[in-house]
């Protein structure tokens, strides 16, 4: 049953959030390319530099942090409202009476699924962001595909990928655990589920931003 619940959560979190991650990643890369090109007006700076900045910005910040902020809304509110509804409609009580460890059965699969699927989504977001940047660069005539690839390959630091993955694991834990706490401890009715869901998303976002700062200060 645990495995089944884990797989259900993987599908919910991974496949369920793919659409929004796909859209924001493409736009994130495209807009970053346009804005960097707008700011780099000097003729002595090579065009490939745009791609280099897009790559590092997306890998270091946009793919993990921005994606996780969005996922905090999408996944976090879903987790909080699902558990809150289960609490209010006595489904959690029903499981407890059966002798089931409800925290283990309901929350653990969510945290584990989030820690597996969110880093995958962030990797995809990174690739899509960089690809989106290339496409927008080409379509708007800012830089060619060759110039873009040249920029992507220059001064690449593999540690940046490692840093993004560390962030993604920590953010994934926050995205699943904070809403689980709020949802599991809901008391009252539909109004309280809504409040818990909002509080969960707000606290998750704040914690993500705080951890983002802390990790950047410690690891970079």
């Amino acid at each position, binding site marked *: *049953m645990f495995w089944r619940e884990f797989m*259900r959560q993987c599908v919910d979190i991974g496949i369920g959030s793919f659409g929004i991650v796909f859209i924001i990643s493409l736009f994130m890369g495209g807009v970053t390319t346009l804005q960097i090109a707008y700011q780099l007006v000097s003729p002595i700076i090579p065009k490939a530099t745009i791609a280099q900045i897009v790559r590092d910005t997306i890998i270091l910040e946009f793919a993990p942090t921005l994606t996780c902020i969005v996922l905090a809304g999408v996944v976090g509110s879903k987790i909080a409202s699902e558990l809150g*509804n289960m609490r209010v*409609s*006595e*489904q959690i*009580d*029903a499981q*407890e*009476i*059966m*002798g*089931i460890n409800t925290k283990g059965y309901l929350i653990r699969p969510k945290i584990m699924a989030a820690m597996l699927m969110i880093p995958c989504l962030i990797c995809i977001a990174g690739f899509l962001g960089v690809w989106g940047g290339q496409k927008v660069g080409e379509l708007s005539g800012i830089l060619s595909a060759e110039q873009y690839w040249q920029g992507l390959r220059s001064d690449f630091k593999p540690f940046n990928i490692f840093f993004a993955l560390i962030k993604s694991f920590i953010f994934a834990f926050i995205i699943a655990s904070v809403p689980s706490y709020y949802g599991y401890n809901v008391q009252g009715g539909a109004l309280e589920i809504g409040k818990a869901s909002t509080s969960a998303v707000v606290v998750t976002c704040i914690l993500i931003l705080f951890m983002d700062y802390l990790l950047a200060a410690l690891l970079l």
Partner: protein
Amino acid sequence: MIELVNIKKGFGEKIILPDVSAVMETGKVNLIIGSSGSGKTVMMKCMVGLMPVDQGKVLYDGQDFTNMSDHEKKEIRQQIGMLFQGSALFDSMTVEENVMFPLHMFGKGTLRDKKKRVMECLERVQLKDAAKKFPAEISGGMKKRVGIARAIVLNPKYLFCDEPNSGLDPQTSLLIDKLIKELTLEYNITTVINTHDMNTVMESGDHIVYMYQGRKQWEGSNKDIIFSKDEKLNDFIFASDFLRDAKEMRQLEMFQESNWRDKLKKG
């Protein structure tokens, strides 16, 4: 048999159950009745361990449930079936999966055996045809029956029902009452029902505990209620003129019945 020995439960300053002792008998439908806020839901939640008691003991066939380790409690809980007021069916599962759930968690045997048991239980509550439906696709009465099927799937020794008739029409209510009564006798279960429904009280109440302001005010059977002199109980049970008239008629009927019996005995 479930015994409550000097149970005390409060929330902060407010004491809900000051000192309650009661016995829920095996093979009988035990009812806890009382007006809203009388403490009957808290009493049931203390019984099943959803709320810890402040003082006192809950004994399941002599075993002290309140002072058990989590592992021991788990064993007792697997012998408990509970029907919730809102049915508490799992929305993401079909009717069949809902009933299968306790078997998946604790049942032994092959998947075929488990499916067979699920179908037996669904047949028992006349819901075999709804097996593949989701809770959102069935009526309130059907949900209650699925809840009953889920509660009995592990052959429990103790069955708890929290307001099983709330939100149901009188005919469906009677059907649910009949089903619970039959299951109690069939499996010799200790059944505890928390209810406001007077039909349930009069039809199924083998043993009734009337709660008033957190205390046990009256105890007896559905037959005793007719002749009870307890004012608070009478105000609660026979609240309307119609019910008071019905009570007097029933008293008269029972009196005449006993007279006829006496006459027949005398020959």
